[in-house]
């Protein structure tokens, strides 16, 4: 058996109340070992309270060449930001 262990992406919740955040990746034969390795590789200094491991192959990523069509349309919709609207001073905080 010479197949390389598959790659897993590791997500860690740093503190209660925060999102899990991608911290890196590692190789492991299965999810259980990925979890053990993630604990050793990415939480040696109290970095987390919860770990997700996801096979890298299961992630679908947007393509860099689609960056324009994907993200540019939102640039000209400035009215989506509250700062677009003038609120009279007399109104105060809104």
């Amino acid at each position, binding site marked *: 058996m010479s197949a390389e*262990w598959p790659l897993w992406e590791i997500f860690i919740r740093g503190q209660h109340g925060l999102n899990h955040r991608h911290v890196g990746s590692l190789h492991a*034969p*299965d999810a259980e070992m990925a979890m053990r390795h993630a604990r050793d*590789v990415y939480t*040696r200094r109290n970095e987390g309270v919860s770990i997700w491991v996801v096979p890298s192959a299961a992630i679908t990523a947007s393509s860099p060449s689609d960056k324009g069509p994907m993200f540019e349309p939102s640039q000209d919709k400035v009215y989506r930001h509250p700062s677009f609207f003038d609120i009279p001073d007399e109104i105060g905080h809104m």
Partner: protein
Amino acid sequence: MYAQMVTSEATQDDPEKLAAFQARIDAGEKIEPKEWMPEGYRKTLIRQIGQHAHSEIVGQLPEGNWITRAPTLERKAILLAKVQDEAGHGLYLYCAAETLGVSRDELTEALLAGKMKYSSIFNYPTLTWADIGAVGWLVDGAAIMNQVPLQRTSFGPYSRAMIRICKEESFHQRQGFDIMRKMATGTDAQRHMAQDALNRFWYPSLMMFGPSDKDSVHSAQSMRWKIKMNTNDELRQKFVDQTVPQAEYLGLTVPDPDLRWNAEKGGYDFTEPDWSEFFEVLKGNGPCNAERLAARQKAWDDGAWVRGGLMAHAAKQAAAPVAAE
């Protein structure tokens, strides 16, 4: 510095694409793995990050040598934690290299075949406990000099690995200095050991930065691509300027009779290491080259059945019908 004398690869890409790529780097943008990059950039990075990763892994060997003989239980626990960190640093870096399209096994096999290098410094032996102090203080100190600026390198995964590593690395240098301080303020025999360790590790530490590269085309290309952030001489000077006062504090003598403060340049004048020794070590003729590679080869061979067995187990588990539970 864990990557020495990394030759840059010539690149034969569309000049227009190359210029656009350079503009992104000049603007401080990070390059991510799936984005277009010149072939030379990719290949140079694989070589540099791979060499850096190999150094972290091989670097565990001289320190691991003292885990069972650490003088106290506390020192042993600290050294274990440090060596475990080095394994982690190797893993972060291998992952960064793999995003460039090379596999972990290919990297390991290239190291074992002598096609990839690791830092010259790990071919020196750790003969006494004071050497563990000197390695942390000087070797990790020199590595930090190089790694701190590399946090700003242009390749995203490399930069992120460096940020993580730098957070952990200052513990390494401090634990080394702490060992040296204990030894330097101890008995005569301990002080002698500390001085002896400094004597043996001083020049090999200066070699870590590699020979002067002020005229090197490879370095110039790597600096344009922000794969390399400073010249070897700049980093070496910075290291000497930082370390000499620390040695004085410890009451130890840097083994360089020509070391003196140069007020005009605001730094120390010092003796260059023996570069012929450096090239011999790179060629494989250092004191421990054969031992280090043999240890890596043995780990690779002895681990083969574990790697294969766990994959076979995973395949079996995946195939097992859920109803069987």
